[in-house]
């Protein structure tokens, strides 16, 4: 079993650099690399107080956050024949449109790479130990997890690699 790359950092990340790294790690057996990058949305539309969201601040629990991500990646490794994975997650203060998270998955074939990247993202949203706080001109507010995110995570069956329900 390969050692997954897991990084929690406040500084921005360079997709190309990580892509080169996983391409090298995947080696000759890799026929597919799926990548996902999440950006900070302008939460304005859903901000409870109707204020304009200026920043998003992410807090984590050093050590335990990394373990929680490692558990998610280990689960993905058990479900799909992966050759390498990378998860980079930023913490601290971020602005709308900033890069916040990146997931890369390398496998021999695209189905496994796509599925694993999606699976890891879905569980990062619900199981990884992060807390988000949005600051708007009306004040600060801790964000609560959404039902939609929880539904996506429970949508993955326990006994196989397939998503058993899909979100609109």
């Amino acid at each position, binding site marked *: 079993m390969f050692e997954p790359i897991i990084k929690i950092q406040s500084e921005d990340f360079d997709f190309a650099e990580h892509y080169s790294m996983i391409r090298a790690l995947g080696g000759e057996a890799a026929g597919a690399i799926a990548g996902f990058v999440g950006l900070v949305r302008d939460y304005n539309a859903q901000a409870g107080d109707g204020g304009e969201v200026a920043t998003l601040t992410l807090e984590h629990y050093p050590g335990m956050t990394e373990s929680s991500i490692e558990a998610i990646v280990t689960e993905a490794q058990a479900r799909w024949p992966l050759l390498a994975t990378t998860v980079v997650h930023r913490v601290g203060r971020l602005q709308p449109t900033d890069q916040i998270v990146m997931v890369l998955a390398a496998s021999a074939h695209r189905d496994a790479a796509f599925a694993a990247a999606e699976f890891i993202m879905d569980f990062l949203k*619900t199981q990884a130990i*992060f807390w988000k706080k949005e600051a708007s001109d009306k004040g600060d507010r801790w964000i609560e997890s959404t039902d939609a995110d929880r539904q996506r995570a429970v949508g993955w069956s326990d006994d196989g690699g397939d998503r058993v329900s899909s979100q609109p």
Partner: protein
Amino acid sequence: MAKIVTIEVKFFASLRERIALGSLTSNAASMPELRQDLASQLSTQAYYVLCGDGVRVAINQVFTTDDWQQSEAAIPADAEVAFLPPVTGG
């Protein structure tokens, strides 16, 4: 001489802000002892915040398997005990 066991209790994110405290130390060697100690060290209001929905406790960075308010778990010497509000993911 009896060994004095000290554990560090940490509070994260919204919990830390709502009780205006990042950490405290305790001599508790079990969850029941910790509940008793927190009830005496914290205000009733702050203790109530920790009893909120979905609050979980980790001992040495591993979640307790049961509800912290019912847990009988032992707490090892020099442990780090953390109170975590529901996570909001990446």
